[in-house]
């Protein structure tokens, strides 16, 4: 962003920093498409001008796919979103009946998950954090699981934990520790359960 020479806004004070807010952070090794970012400028520029300055400075692996001006009063991205969709994939270790795995998950009303940190050990219920049915497929070499996970303030389910649960308890023919995670969307689920993407209403 600095290379682009966009008129970036900075905070006040002794240690000014760029006024940028990001989508929920990705764990090491995770990819995302899309990944959202808000940047505040000191001068209004058209999206076309911003695109023209920013795109040539983007590093390998980062593409600008959408750009829109948003209201100053718009909430921060992290505050906006409470739901993320993922594609989890890993090498298959055997034949897969994707529908059976998905149905086994769907039938369960609770799925306890023990989470151990340095400070504490607790058990959360993973099932309600995955409100939509799983889609489990394979091309023979890799297994793919499409899943949406709610993000709450108190309990969290990491996509890698979901994968490990599916391998351990639901017969997913894969290895627990061999999974790549691609985030396919960041949303806010409204009261009806409809996911709204950040730029949908802009």
């Amino acid at each position, binding site marked *: 962003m*600095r290379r682009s020479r966009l008129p970036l806004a900075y905070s006040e004070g002794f*240690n000014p920093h760029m006024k940028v807010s990001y989508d929920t952070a990705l764990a*090491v*090794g995770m990819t995302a498409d899309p990944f959202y970012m808000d940047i505040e400028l000191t001068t209004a520029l058209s999206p076309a001008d911003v695109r023209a300055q920013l795109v040539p400075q983007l*590093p390998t692996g980062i593409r600008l796919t959408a750009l829109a001006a948003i209201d100053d009063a718009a909430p921060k991205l992290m505050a906006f979103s409470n739901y993320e969709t993922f594609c989890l994939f890993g090498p298959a270790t055997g034949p897969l009946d994707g529908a059976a795995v998905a149905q086994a998950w769907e039938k369960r009303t609770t799925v306890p998950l023990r989470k151990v940190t340095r400070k504490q050990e607790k058990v959360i219920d993973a099932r309600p954090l995955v409100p939509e049915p799983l889609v489990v497929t394979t091309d023979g070499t890799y297994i793919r699981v499409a899943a949406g996970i709610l993000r709450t303030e108190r309990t969290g389910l990491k996509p890698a934990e979901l994968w490990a649960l599916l391998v351990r308890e639901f017969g997913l023919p894969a290895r627990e520790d*061999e*999974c*790549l995670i691609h985030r396919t969307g960041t949303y806010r689920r409204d009261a009806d359960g409809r996911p709204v993407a950040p730029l949908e209403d802009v």
Partner: protein
Amino acid sequence: MSQVKVSPFALAKVQKPARYIGGEWNSVVKGHDKMNVSVALAFPDVYEVAMSHLGLKILYHVINTIPDAVAERVYAPWPDMERLMRAERWPLYTLETKRPVREYDLFGLTLQYEMCATNVLNMLDLAGIPVWSKDRTDDDPLVIAGGPCVYNAEPLAPFIDVFFIGESEESVVEMVDVWREWKTAGKPGGRPEILARMAAIEGNYVPALYRDTYDAAGHFQALVPLSADAPRTIHKRVVADVESLPVPTKPLLPHLAPVHDRAVLELFRGCTRGCRFCQAGMLYRPIREKSPGKLLALAEEMIASSGYDEISLMSLSSADYSALPELVDLLMERFASQRVGVSLPSLRIDSFSIDIAKKVQQVRKSGLTFAPEAGTQRMRDVINKGVAEEDLMAACRNAFASGWNTVKLYFMMGLPTETDADLDGIADLGYKVSDLYREVTGRSGCKVTVSVSSFVPKPFTPFQWMAQAPVEEIQRRQQYLKGKIRNRHITYRYHDAPTSFMEAVLARGDRRLAPVIYRVWQDGGRFDGWTEFFSFERWMRALAAEGIDPAYYASRVRALDEPLPWEHIDCGVTRDYLQREWRRGCEAGLTHDCRRLSCLGCGVCPQLGVRVIDGKGGDRAKATYIYQQR
């Protein structure tokens, strides 16, 4: 051209996989099939350390600027990645195109620290290149090395084909030319021929063309040239005028936070303050400055191509740059609107430096670092560190009054003629600085760090004949000083004495240490410069197995007329000069900086055909001479 297929599933299991993926902004990818010369440039340490090093980036830039040559990077894989590579049979590969290092024409390493020796062997082995030079064939890359450790290359001599001594910007271009000519002619004469051609490049040392000899008592006697291609003395390469040197103005932006992550502006090369312990001061003379205008132009290119928000003014002693205030003003004025700051990695111990620091550090967010090096004036005079206690106090007074409250003080112990009274002086200085803060600000709360390293007498310094203090004695002194510092505002840190001992063994050793390094590596030695991996027992086992007493190298006083294993290298400074400085040091006599005063006869300028280039000539003597002992 083959490519190592690194599985992302496997890579996700190692720490910091970003170390191994390449694709950094400003990295250069060239089609190998159109290239006549390919070089894999290696730094034998982990990514975060390697990406801070400017020297390798300079060579990367120089080689990639040549239309038919390509350079790519490779760094030491962390132990977890090494295990994965060996399990998956992934050979060592370069970051830009994942090409196996084995397929390159040349494999170039920079040797910055003696304790990286086992990493060098490990990288050779991971690359599938025979570790011993004698086992390599025409199909293996030529293994070359540069950096400060090559000034005593002997412990690694049997593993490296060619050492580049001195500044390599020009000699690396000659290397590319020589290789291209030999390769396009069909590699006539094979490996022996290319080694001979490399030996003909000034500043190159080809160990295979020499035999090490020892007298009846087992002391090093000479390196005997084995062919007419081998010069008896190898003179370091030095670039006379640094103003026109190629500079990488498109900094590689690391994926991970390296040790230093900012745009680096090299202000000048060399330092002639003459501190007697300092090898760099002897190896890199004379002083050659770049002009402020040139530096500003370089800074503009670097910032535009990187987006860095900080420029580091780098050199052996940046505060000595003759136009420093003007340069800082130029840079701050030019970059203020872009919110680009300027930083000085080291400060001279005087109030003037604090004024510069105040200018560059608008927020006193980081501490100030000073290097008094010794605790008493007598000891500082022995090492020719021209710093008085009043200078340090004045600098600290200015700093505290300006808002700083954190000071780090660097010292050494184990210096020649040192006594416990000199260690008391270190503690005293720490207390005085801490007390000064209260006096200036009326508050307590200054954080003073006293950091003490163990002195290693290095080749080509006036102290090269002295013995390093034994490990037990260093440890005694460390604990003695610990007992003297009992203040919660003062943190005392000291280096591991056994590591410093091994560093001295390797720095002052000869070729007979090569089998020791090999054994240590085979026994699992890696990242020996890292506390968590260094095993003193492993090194001692290897030394015992080879029948070598390490104290012979580290702890033995060398006779003044004793042949030294590194003296086939000429750094420009004469033995006579070093011995005069050794005598002066023992008497605590001072030697001035020749930069603007009279020549002292060290020999560098007349012997190598260079001169001091200093922006403010002042009283610099026009005549230079070479001091000779009667």
